[in-house]
């Protein structure tokens, strides 16, 4: 790492960054990544500041354990810092960074947590099943996050990206490195299981 700085600063912008796919809205972030690739610490801080809220949210929903979230968040930005020169402009910067976050989150989960519960049948009630109760908004949110935590990491991640980050299915597919059909099927099964987990706690939302 010590020798990186001299090497990076003497390099011109890597030619393989090339002209990105035409996405004018992404141009500022592409420029930032290009500067990070040259060892520009200010650009890196700007990128970190830009992405910290979103990554905190995504990784925070992937795991409820703060040490896991902190580790995955740091590891993600470390990869961005070290591998900025690998960004080839063929996708949005956000897709690239979220893909890194997805992989580091999975790794952190494997290192720190037991595997998620085996999927239960859709007809099975949740462990918290009971009479319908009126719950506050905060309790509803807690129940939702808790139920998400009971899905597999793969299902949880695509549901979070679709519903919490409003990403198109094509982008989610790139982030999780799966075909679009796989993403759609995971979301379908994931949301059905989620609904089953929530039915005893929240009653029917309809």
């Amino acid at each position, binding site marked *: 790492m010590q020798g990186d700085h001299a090497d990076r600063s003497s390099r011109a912008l890597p030619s393989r960054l090339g002209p990105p796919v035409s996405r004018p809205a992404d141009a500022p972030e592409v420029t930032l990544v290009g500067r990070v690739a040259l060892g520009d610490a200010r650009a890196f801080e700007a990128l970190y500041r830009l992405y910290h809220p979103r990554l*905190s949210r995504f990784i925070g929903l992937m795991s409820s354990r703060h040490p896991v979230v902190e580790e995955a968040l740091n590891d993600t930005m470390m990869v961005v810092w070290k591998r900025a020169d690998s960004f080839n402009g063929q996708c949005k910067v956000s897709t690239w960074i979220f893909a890194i976050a997805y992989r580091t989150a999975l790794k952190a989960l494997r290192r720190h947590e037991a595997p998620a519960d085996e999927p239960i049948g859709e007809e099975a009630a949740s462990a918290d099943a009971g009479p319908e109760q009126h719950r506050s908004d905060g309790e509803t949110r807690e129940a939702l996050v808790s139920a998400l935590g009971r899905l597999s990491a793969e299902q949880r991640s695509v549901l979070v990206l679709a519903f919490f980050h*409003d990403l198109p299915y094509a982008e989610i597919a790139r982030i999780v490195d799966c075909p679009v059909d796989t993403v759609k*099927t995971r979301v379908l099964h994931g949301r059905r299981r989620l609904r089953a987990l929530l039915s005893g706690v929240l009653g029917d939302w309809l």
Partner: protein
Amino acid sequence: MARILSLEGDEHQHAQLQLPWYVNGTLEVEERAAVQAHLGRCARCQADAAWQFRLRAEAGEDRASREATPRDDFERDWVALLEQLDPPRMAAAPGRGFRARWPGSWSRWLAIAATAQAVVIAALALALWVSPSRPADAYRALGQPSPIVAANALVVFHADATEAQIRRALRACDARIVGGPTTTDAYLLAVPDLGPRTLAKLRSEPAVLRIESLEGEAAR
């Protein structure tokens, strides 16, 4: 293992698979129209869509709740990340890069570097002043020549501080910039009567991110 379902054929199954993106508004126009047409004919998908709209609304509430997270979380995470990276290179970040926890080794290094810089500046100024080759008529000062002033404080301004804010901060304590910017975007100040009260006053200025006394008083 999830079963991969084919998208061909079954209109209902197709709509079921597309619903999340109908709900989050990212379907293409034709896709959206197709789902909407099916929703008009399928009560089950209508119910499913309503549930997912509620799910997304709850997700939005969660986002609002998380966005209320104090800034300190960012500062803490940023400093933790900095400590894992190459410190001398990251020191090239602007003043905002130096947050609540200023590693002790960096603080001492910065104070030493700033003091050395101040000494060099003062020495150069002195050399110019005593130079015998100063032509009498080449330059005429409009006022009294300023005494040589050594720097006694090191300040880092916010990256987005305006010139008016910086000027106001300096005038508030009759401070003057006598050196800088350094490689870490710090400036050397000469501040009359630099004491705890003056330091506190400068710290309270919107333009000032961080200030350290070079006279030995601990900074924030």
